[in-house]
């Protein structure tokens, strides 16, 4: 008899412990168990550190330190990845390139986030009204436009350069996120806690931001992470085409573009930035996959 009481007591304690932990803590615990995702997280953290501490890691100046008598050298002790067509150290350029790629990836995703979440939440909350219809038609039009060309078009219209890329990439991706957020908001808006909040006199804005949106953070985080990978690939493409970061800025994409001309003599110029992009995108994808499993254990 006392055993049963004891067991029941232990269960109650365990349950209280479980419930007292926030979803974030629980998710982190789940993430910790998945080795592959931890690897992805570690890699992402490493990349961020490389980007932040680039000036201390790179042995040479990536832009100004050029030497035309030392062009297109293969990897050596002085230049770990060799030199490019102006004699600049490739390793330093790759390290600084991390800054650019990660910066672009994150910033453009934030633009998409603001647009997508903002418009999607509006559309979902006011579903069925003209607001919803207008936003959804807009999203359809953006969808129908070939995204690469729109990005290129915006870049051509605004002139090449980094800020252009942020805007171009951000503009292109918001439709998917808006639709996702709209679906989620639709799910939650009829639930009781929303009714309760309204009964207490909360304004629409307050309900949206304080009550509904926090429920939606999980898919937002996942889409954001995967989106960074996509944004980095897109920035590569744009830089490769000559829009975006202009030479001599060390963008991985434009490095590959200029390496095309010398592919016979110095193939490493193509492989180095390509590999860097690949590793970065891979890391974010692993992290995104892991986050998806950790934040929503039902979806296996």
């Amino acid at each position, binding site marked *: 008899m006392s055993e049963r009481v004891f067991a029941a007591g232990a269960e109650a304690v365990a349950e209280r412990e479980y419930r007292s932990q926030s979803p974030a803590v629980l998710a982190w615990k789940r993430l910790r168990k998945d080795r592959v995702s931890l690897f992805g997280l570690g890699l992402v953290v490493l990349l961020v550190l490389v980007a932040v501490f680039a000036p201390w890691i790179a042995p040479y100046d990536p832009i100004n330190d050029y030497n035309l008598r030392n062009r297109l050298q293969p990897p050596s002790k002085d230049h770990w990845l060799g030199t490019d067509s102006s004699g600049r150290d490739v390793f330093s350029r790759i390290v600084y390139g991390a800054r650019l790629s990660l910066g672009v990836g994150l910033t453009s995703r934030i633009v998409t986030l603001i647009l997508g979440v903002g418009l999607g939440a509006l559309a979902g909350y006011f579903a069925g009204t003209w607001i919803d219809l207008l936003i959804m038609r807009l999203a359809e039009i953006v969808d129908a436009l070939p995204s690469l*060309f729109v990005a290129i078009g915006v870049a051509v219209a605004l002139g090449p350069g980094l800020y252009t890329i942020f805007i171009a990439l951000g503009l292109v991706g918001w439709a998917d996120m808006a639709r996702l957020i709209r679906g989620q908001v639709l799910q939650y808006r009829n639930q009781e806690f929303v009714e309760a909040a309204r009964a207490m006199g909360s304004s629409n804005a307050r309900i949206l931001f304080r009550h509904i949106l926090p429920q939606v953070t999980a898919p937002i985080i996942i889409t954001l992470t995967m989106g960074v990978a996509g944004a980095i690939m897109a920035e590569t493409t744009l830089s490769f085409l000559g829009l975006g970061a202009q030479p001599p800025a060390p963008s991985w994409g434009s490095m590959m573009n200029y390496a095309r001309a010398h592919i016979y003599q110095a193939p490493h110029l193509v492989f180095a930035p390509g590999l860097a992009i690949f590793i970065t995108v891979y890391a974010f994808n692993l992290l995104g996959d892991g986050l998806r499993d950790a934040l929503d254990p039902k979806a296996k």
Partner: protein
Amino acid sequence: MSRYFLRRLLLVIPVLIGVSVFTFILFYIVPGDPVLIMVGERASPETVARLRAELGLDQPLPIQYLNWIGKAVRGDLGRSFITGRSIAESIQARFPVTVRLSLYSMLFAIVLGIPAGIWAATHKGTWIDGVIRNVSLLGVCTPVIFQGLAMQYIFGVWLRWLPVSGLNDGSWRDFLMPAFVLGTGIAAYQARLVRAVMLEVLGEDFIRTARAKGLSERLVVYRHALRNALIPIVTTLGGSLSSLLVGSALTETIFALPGIGSYTLDAVFARDLPVIMAMFVFQAVVFAAANLLIDAAYALIDPRVRYE
């Protein structure tokens, strides 16, 4: 059901209008006067004015737009500012190249991706599954540029097995590398998707029934599970086909194939407005048509699907 499709067709029209208006506005913000680009800086003002009037560029914007629409509906897509060639002709010449590239790529994608996904699902947890999952993740993460350039170097320059670029004799050899690059990207994505979907379907009750009935595993997987998994698979395949048709501009540029993707890309860089307008709208049409076909395919595959 045909009323549904009719309604879908009609809904495409506002989207097309939106696309063309957007394109029009976008390229009028672009700095650079096409007339000046065409005749050069040193032309006399009379020549410039004459050319402008000829091209209808001196009219107010909405009138220009309506002119364009009026001609486009009748099939006259105008002439390129740069080359002067009829755009409709160029499309006719170039679209088949893009179609061929898309079809070959889809072939790679289907042949490589779907069996891999099924295999991974049926051997879940074994090394086969692990290998397939990792390889497909690698495939998703490899940028097209990198893969394209790497293959060009290895197979074109180093081994000299395949032509590096260009539409040389029009044989399959010209398309092999670009189709492989595009196809493997899609295949990687497909493999992961097929695996996930098959796993979900294989966990359902009717599969248990089929096995309990004593059906061979092959029948269970291929006849019952796969059929039901087909819808999401066909959706994504269709989506990939749409994007391919809309022009794999990057691949066409890297491999110098004269398709509509590279055509549009060159036009965007050259600010060739008639071509840009025509191509954006053309691509929206192709995209919408492809989506409609996919939806029609659903009705064939899944008898439960009834459009109202």
